[in-house]
């Protein structure tokens, strides 16, 4: 299923001033669309930005829980950067019907396939 959505240079957007972290994600789906789970701990509802630009789906996650002032790192395993994920869709999506919700740092996205590409059952006359 992962071949359906191809990951394309997700790090390209990162600049030295604002490094971005590519979140872990999972793609599942049924005949009528795709379900994507993006793991972005530290991001609340207001911090998610989803944009569909042609066949590119850009998912941005801004950390709601920034590191408080005065905290010094003793050990950091993962960067405290914001998230960015770029996915290339090779199936037409009905952009108006994209549904998204975020809960406990996991973004659930449903991308319904456009009517034109949905599988069709043809009745034999």
């Amino acid at each position: 299923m992962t071949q359906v959505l191809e990951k394309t240079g997700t790090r390209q957007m990162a600049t030295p001033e604002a490094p971005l972290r590519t979140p872990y994600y999972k793609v599942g789906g049924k005949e009528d669309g795709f379900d994507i789970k993006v793991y972005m701990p530290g991001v609340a509802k207001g911090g998610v930005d989803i944009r569909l630009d042609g066949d590119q789906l850009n998912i941005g996650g801004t950390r709601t829980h920034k590191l408080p002032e005065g905290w010094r790192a003793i050990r950091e395993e993962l960067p405290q950067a914001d998230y960015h994920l770029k996915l290339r869709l090779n199936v037409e999506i009905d952009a108006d019907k994209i549904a998204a919700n975020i809960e406990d740092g996991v973004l659930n996205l449903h991308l319904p396939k456009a009517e034109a590409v949905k599988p069709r059952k043809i009745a034999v006359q």
Partner: protein
Amino acid sequence: MKLIRYQYPELTTSPLGDLERFFEHALTRFGRWPGLFDVEEFPHEVAADLYEDDANFYARFELPGIKKKEIDVELENAVLTVSGEHKAKEGDTEKSVTFSRSISVPDGIDTNKITAKFEDGLLTVAMPKTEIRKPKAITIK
């Protein structure tokens, strides 16, 4: 009777030597994110960070998708353990995944005053330093 000086096998100069080794070990074992999640549902290994300010040590764990009531936090002998069981629903089937992560924390923590908070997949454990560990300004008489 012979007196033999004991050689510490991995003596580092850092005061947090043990702690660092612990993390080093943890990282080589678990690798970083992409590898961590090869397994079906989140999370088998949990990323952990350790911070401090003047009054507290803070441990942060990334637990996206986990519910607050599924998490257990325990501190024993300077080892902080976060563990739990996560029930994931996928379609009609329900799967259960257990997770556990331990980190060693510095000495000098007031164990009675530890607090934990879980928000948006991020668990923060605040461990107040005992009076001795807090920086003190000394006035010259």
